[in-house]
C-alpha cells in the first residue's frame, strides 16, 4: 500500500502542479474588439461583451445585442538545458470562448439584463516529461494530457443614474473534461491514472462607469471601475488508477484572487477612441490545496499588476465602416524563476515572470451585424537555474467575434 500511496501522491502532485502551471489565472474579459485594443476595455464596455469587462457599461446599450466569440490558441513550450538540448511541446486549439445576449428595457434608469457563457480557465495540455522517484524504481517517463475547461454561466443587471452607470454580474463556474497521466514505472510497468474533475464556484463582479459625456458640460471621457471579490473554486476530484483497481475521491480548493480594475476611455474624435486600464489581481497568498498539501497559486506568491493601453480608429467609407485597433499590455504570469531547492527539496522561486503582449485587430461593421478579428502575441522565459533548464513559452491567439444588433 505504501507504493500505491506513493503513486497516488505523485499523481496529485503531477496533476495539480501541472494544472497550476498550465493556466496563468489571468482571466480577462471576452471579445475580439477588446482583444484588438490590448484588452483596455473597462472604461469602454459599450457592447454585448461588457458583461465580462464591466457590467455597468451594459446600460449604455439601447438595442438588444447578441455576441459569439471563438478563440484559436497556439502555444509552444520549449525546454532548453545547459547542453543546448531542447524539446518543444506545441498545442493548438479552437473553440467557442464566449456568447452573450443583452436586452435593454424601457425605463427611467435604462435597465438592462444580460446573460453570457464564457470559457474562464483553460487547463488543456499535452506534455511528456521525466520524473525521478526511487520508490517507483528511478526515472519515470510521464505522458500527461488534459482537456479540462472551466466555464462560467453569468447573468448581469445594469442601470443608469444620470451620468453614473452601475451593474453587477453573477457567475456560476463549472468544469468539463478530465486529466490523465501515464507513468512508465520501472517497478510496476505502465500505470495510467485519470483525474475526473468537477469544479464549481460562484463569483460576483461589481462595476461602475462614470460617463462624463452625460454631464451638462459634456466631455467625451468615461471612467470605469470594476471589483470582483475573492472566492473559492471547489474541485470534487475522483482519481482512478485501473491497474491497481484504485479509486479515490478528494477535494481540491482553488482560492481565486480578487480583482480590482480601473479604466479610462477618451473619444478624441468621432472616429478615434483611446483607452487605458489598470488591473490588480490579488494572487498573493492564494493557494491550491488538497488535504494537507498546498501550493501557491502564483509561484512567486505576488499579486499581478497589469497595465493595458489601446486605440480604435474607424475608417468610414460610403458603404462600410472598418475599425482598426491596436494595443499593448504587460502580462504578469503565475510563473517564477526557480533559483534553488531548500533543505526539504522544495523549490525556491525568485520574482514573477512578466511578458509583454502586442495586440492588433480589425473588423467590419454593418447596420445589424459586426464582425471583428484580433491577434495577440506574447512570449516569456522561465529560468530554472537550479536545474539548468530554460522554459521558453510562445503564445498566439486569434479571436473572432460576431455581434448581432436586433
Amino acid at each position, binding site marked *: 500500500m505504501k507504493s500505491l500511496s506513493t503513486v497516488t501522491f505523485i499523481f496529485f502532485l503531477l496533476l495539480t502542479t501541472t494544472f497550476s502551471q498550465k493556466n496563468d489565472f489571468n482571466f480577462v474579459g471576452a471579445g475580439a474588439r477588446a482583444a484588438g485594443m490590448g484588452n483596455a476595455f473597462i472604461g469602454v464596455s*459599450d457592447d454585448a461583451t461588457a458583461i465580462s469587462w464591466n457590467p455597468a457599461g451594459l446600460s449604455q*446599450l439601447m438595442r438588444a445585442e447578441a455576441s459569439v466569440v471563438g478563440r484559436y490558441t497556439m502555444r509552444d513550450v520549449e525546454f532548453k538545458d545547459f547542453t543546448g538540448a531542447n524539446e518543444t511541446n506545441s498545442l493548438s486549439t479552437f473553440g467557442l470562448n464566449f456568447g452573450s445576449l443583452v436586452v435593454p428595457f*424601457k425605463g427611467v434608469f435604462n435597465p438592462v439584463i444580460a446573460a453570457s457563457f464564457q470559457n474562464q480557465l483553460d487547463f488543456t495540455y499535452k506534455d511528456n516529461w521525466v520524473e525521478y522517484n526511487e520508490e517507483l524504481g528511478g526515472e519515470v517517463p510521464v505522458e500527461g494530457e488534459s482537456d479540462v475547461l472551466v466555464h462560467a454561466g453569468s447573468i448581469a443587471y445594469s442601470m443608469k*443614474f444620470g451620468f453614473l452607470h452601475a451593474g453587477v454580474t453573477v457567475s456560476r463556474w463549472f468544469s468539463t473534461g478530465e486529466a490523465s497521466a501515464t507513468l512508465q514505472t520501472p517497478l510496476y510497468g505502465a500505470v495510467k491514472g485519470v483525474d475526473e474533475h468537477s469544479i464549481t464556484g460562484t463569483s460576483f463582479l461589481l462595476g461602475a462607469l462614470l460617463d462624463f459625456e*452625460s454631464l451638462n458640460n*459634456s466631455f467625451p471621457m468615461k471612467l470605469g471601475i470594476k471589483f470582483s471579490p475573492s472566492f473559492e473554486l471547489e474541485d470534487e476530484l475522483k482519481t482512478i488508477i485501473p491497474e491497481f483497481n484504485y479509486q479515490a475521491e478528494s477535494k481540491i480548493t482553488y482560492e481565486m484572487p480578487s480583482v480590482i480594475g480601473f479604466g479610462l476611455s477618451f473619444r478624441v474624435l468621432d472616429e478615434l477612441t483611446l483607452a487605458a486600464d489598470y488591473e490588480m489581481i490579488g494572487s498573493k497568498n492564494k493557494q491550491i490545496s488538497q488535504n494537507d498539501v498546498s501550493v501557491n497559486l502564483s509561484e512567486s506568491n505576488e499579486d499581478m499588476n497589469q497595465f493595458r493601453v489601446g486605440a480604435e480608429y474607424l475608417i468610414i467609407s*460610403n458603404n462600410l465602416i472598418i475599425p482598426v485597433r491596436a494595443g499593448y499590455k504587460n502580462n504578469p504570469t503565475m510563473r517564477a524563476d526557480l533559483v534553488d531547492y531548500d533543505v526539504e527539496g522544495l523549490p525556491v522561486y525568485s520574482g514573477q515572470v512578466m511578458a509583454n503582449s502586442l495586440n492588433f485587430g480589425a473588423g467590419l461593421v*454593418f447596420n445589424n451585424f459586426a464582425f471583428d478579428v484580433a491577434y495577440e502575441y506574447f512570449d516569456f522565459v522561465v529560468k530554472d537555474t537550479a536545474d539548468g533548464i530554460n522554459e521558453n513559452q510562445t503564445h498566439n491567439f486569434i479571436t473572432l467575434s460576431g455581434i448581432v444588433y436586433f
Partner: protein
Amino acid sequence: MRKSVRLLLILILCVIICPEIIYSQQKFYEYYEKGLNYASSQDWQSAADMFKKAIEIDAKDSYRKRVYGTKFIEYFPNRELGIAYAYLKQDGLARQYLDISLGEVYSERAEDFKNRVGNPSLLTAVEPKKEEPQKAAGKTVLFQRLHY
C-alpha cells in the same frame, strides 16, 4: 481599512455623484430618439422639445452619427424640428430649421417638407420615404435609427 473604504464610498456618493446626477443630461441621440417617438405619435410639441434638447448638445445633421460602440445612426434634429414646427403651424421656425438642415446636408425629406410648409392640406398628405435622400446623395442605406 474597511471603515476607510466605506467612508470613501459614501464621500464619493454624497459629494460628487449625487449633485452630478441632478445636473447630468441625456445623450443627444436619446433626446433625438424620444423626439422621433413623439413625432410618430403626432405629439408635435413634445417632439419639438426633444429635438431642441438634442440640438443643444449636437446641432449638426448627418447621415451617420456615432452613438455608442461602433454603432451609427442617421441624425437630422434640425430637419425633424422643422417638420414638427410645420405641424405646429409655426411656419417661420419650420422654414428656418429646414433651411439649416438643407444647408448642412441635403435630404429629400427636408426639401419636400420645405415645399409643404404653410399648406395644411399638403401636410396631411402621405409623407415621403425617409431613406430616399441617401440614394439621391449617392450613398447606400446602411444605418438606420435606433428603436426603443
